[in-house]
């Protein structure tokens, strides 16, 4: 991407204004939206208005794309990026914001970087101060900039050799991890001394709340509370001048949140830290060691939960699923999905030669530590499917399985891998459906980076409807194929969400899945009338085109012939992502509802549904 944005935009703008015959709405909109990209402006409100105006009148972009294609792309991409950045800053705080920030700044393309608003958050400070002054404090704290760290952390970190320059040189998530490492060290140094005899109790009172915040470990936080209480010391929370109280109150700090950030294994960490509280640890002599200490003998128990180690996390992915040189996918997870309509389609996708030559059906599957709230998924930038290793840990705990049981012997014969595959399969079907959607978009030459409104648009939600319907259909079909006596137990072994998704699909069809998706979205946003209208318009185009093409062409009137040509051209236009998404969603719904009919027949045992003219319940 060009860094000389100012020149790129203003020169064509000047030429354009001199040349083009005036069309009031077009000229004005383009001028306002392009001049907003001047480094001295970058107004997110104007950006939001621009995106809305472009939605309302698709002809503007249609015309600009022909006259000035690069200006058209930039207009959309950069105004969209500003709008989304403002929304993200207003919607997220703390670690949740840091995660969003990482996604925004470190994907394949970084429009905000081109506008000198990143990748370092400090580059955005004056912009945020100008346009989002009420969010500035929270923003600075959420990105853990040096000046926002507060009077408790800063002297201690400085004593450790940190400086503002070295600190702010780190990426945001690295700052969170650095604070966690620091907090671990300080806990190890401090807590072996009982609070009651601690030399500087006032300092301790201020320190403990900060450590709790940085540790992301609720169990340890509780123990730190107890530690202070043991010395009759009341904690003193130094109001961070940067952060709002409301933000801090709402923050959930789980150990898995933090461990997920840079591949730290939650279990190993927690086991070690707890040693300092149960008496089996001791103050480290020099550098803090994260090794397991030889602790007191644990009482013998039939099952001891152990989380996956880092090596096991890496090794488990290929044991579940692997792709051969011929493209075919094998392993316990492949076996689990084979023999169902949805599963067989996914396997066929990975084995398909056409996608293989485009390089779009490569299987990059694995496990990774993530925040506790994540399942994981298909990442179209990294082109991989990653599942949260925390899910596996939870599954092992629930089913009393150890890592060794998963890792031993021939994967093809390992019944625990089979069990785990059963649990992970709906997620895999869903995410593989997204990979297939990406592959289809690429095959049609659709530039995903420039497809504006992607993450939030109703078009993206139709892609979700297909993916959810595929995984629901998979689960429902597995359920239906089982002997009656085994069905309930199968559902009980799944994640409750997967069970519910299959239930919605069986009870209400693909429409039910669609509505469920929209409920989640609409709960947070107001329905955008403009997006809605455009959604309907694009669908209308696809349907009208289908209807005309289906006709005997010899019977078309001249007007209809022109309509067909016009609709076809519109389909081929910049909005092809929308129209293809709608076309695909039509085909997907028809197919997946047909699967549902067959599945329901299996479940009901091929009973004929009794049809009565009068509802028998109302005969009383």
């Amino acid at each position, binding site marked *: 991407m060009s860094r000389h944005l100012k020149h790129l935009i203003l020169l064509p703008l000047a030429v354009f204004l001199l040349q083009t015959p005036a069309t009031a709405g077009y000229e004005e909109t383009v001028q306002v939206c392009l001049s907003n990209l001047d480094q001295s402006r970058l107004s997110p409100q104007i950006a939001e208005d621009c995106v809305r105006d472009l939605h309302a009148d698709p002809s503007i972009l249609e015309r600009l794309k022909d006259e000035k294609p690069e200006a058209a792309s930039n207009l959309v991409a950069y105004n969209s990026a500003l709008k989304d950045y403002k929304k993200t800053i207003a919607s997220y705080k703390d670690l949740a914001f840091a995660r969003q920030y990482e996604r925004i700044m470190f994907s394949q393309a970084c429009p905000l970087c081109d506008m000198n608003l990143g990748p370092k958050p400090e580059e955005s400070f004056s912009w945020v101060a100008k346009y989002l002054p009420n969010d500035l404090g929270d923003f600075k704290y959420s990105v853990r900039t040096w000046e926002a760290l507060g009077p408790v952390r800063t002297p201690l970190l400085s004593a450790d050799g940190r400086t503002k320059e070295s600190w702010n040189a780190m990426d945001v998530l690295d700052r969170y991890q650095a604070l966690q490492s620091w907090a671990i060290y300080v806990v190890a140094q401090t807590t072996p001394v009982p609070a009651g005899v601690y030399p500087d109790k006032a300092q301790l009172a201020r320190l403990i709340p900060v450590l709790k915040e940085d540790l992301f470990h609720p169990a340890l936080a509780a123990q730190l509370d107890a530690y202070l209480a043991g010395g009759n010391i009341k904690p003193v929370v130094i109001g961070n001048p940067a952060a709002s109280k409301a933000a801090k109150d709402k923050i959930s700090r789980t150990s898995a949140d933090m461990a997920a950030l840079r591949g730290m294994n939650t279990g190993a960490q927690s086991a070690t830290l707890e040693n300092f509280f149960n008496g089996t640890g001791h103050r480290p002599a020099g550098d803090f060691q994260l090794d397991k200490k030889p602790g007191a003998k644990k009482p013998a128990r039939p099952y001891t939960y152990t989380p996956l180690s880092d090596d096991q996390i890496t090794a488990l992915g290929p044991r579940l699923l692997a792709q051969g040189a011929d493209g075919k996918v094998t392993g316990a997870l492949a076996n689990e999905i084979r023999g169902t309509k949805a599963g067989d389609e996914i396997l066929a996708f990975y084995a398909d030669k056409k996608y293989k030559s485009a390089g779009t059906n490569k299987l990059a599957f694995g496990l990774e530590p993530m925040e506790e709230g994540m399942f994981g998924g298909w990442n179209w930038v990294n082109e991989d499917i990653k599942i949260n290793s925390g899910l596996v840990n939870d599954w092992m705990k629930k089913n009393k399985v150890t890592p060794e049981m998963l890792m031993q012997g021939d994967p093809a014969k390992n019944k625990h891998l089979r069990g785990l595959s059963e649990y992970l399969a709906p997620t895999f079907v869903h995410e593989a459906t997204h990979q297939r959607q990406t592959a289809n978009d690429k095959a049609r030459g659709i530039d995903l980076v420039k497809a504006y409104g992607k993450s939030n648009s109703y078009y993206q939600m139709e892609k979700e409807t297909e993916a959810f319907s595929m995984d629901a259909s998979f689960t429902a079909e597995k359920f239906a194929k089982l002997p009656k006596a085994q*069905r309930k137990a199968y559902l*009980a072994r799944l994640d409750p969400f997967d069970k519910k998704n299959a239930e919605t699909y069986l009870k209400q069809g693909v429409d039910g899945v669609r509505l469920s998706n929209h409920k*989640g979205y609409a709960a947070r946003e107001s*329905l955008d009338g403009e997006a809605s209208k455009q959604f309907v318009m694009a669908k209308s185009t696809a349907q009208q085109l289908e209807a005309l093409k289906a006709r005997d062409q010899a019977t078309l009137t001249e*007007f209809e012939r022109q309509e067909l040509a016009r609709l076809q051209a519109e389909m081929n236009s910049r909005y092809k992502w929308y129209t293809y998404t709608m076309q695909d969603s039509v085909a997907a719904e028809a197919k997946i509802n047909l699967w549902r009919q067959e599945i*329901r027949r299996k479940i009901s045992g091929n009973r004929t549904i009794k049809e009565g003219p009068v509802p028998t319940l109302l005969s009383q």
Partner: protein
Amino acid sequence: MKNIFTAMLMFCAAGAGAAGPAPYTCEGGYFTLTIPAGWGQMPAGGQSAKAKQVYGVDLLLAGQGGAAAPSITVKFYASGNSVFKTGQDYVDSNSAPLGDPEPGEQYSPVTGAAVAGRKAYKFERKFNGYFGPREERKAPVAMFERHLVLPAKDGFYVLLFSAPFAQAKALVPQFEALVKSFKPKK
């Protein structure tokens, strides 16, 4: 030549933004009703109503916060539709849980009710819903649903109210008002 189908589609979508109470006529003319103030139409997706032989609308009460927006669904399932064979089929499928119900989930018996002066089925359920992106783990949300199923000539109607349980009691009068305004043509 104006494509009647397209015109109906645009007409149905005309009330897409949330506003005051609005009259609604379903594509194909299968029913009319009044959309209560504040409820907006969910954008249609997937197959056309004609292809599915399912006609009607999903309404959402958006921007309320929480995990799930309340919804009202009113549909006419024409004979031969791709989703349910009959109204009885719909009732059988929706009035019982799949597998064992989760703790706290409840299904009412199926009873009679009057809709547009005619005899209909009615049942309710309390159940756990999960809302949000696939990529995130979700906490269950206690949900309430009331289903009204009205047999008709060449098909059947469904009027379905769905909301988080905590909000349901306050919102159900709006559903009842919509049901009162509902006029089936079949």
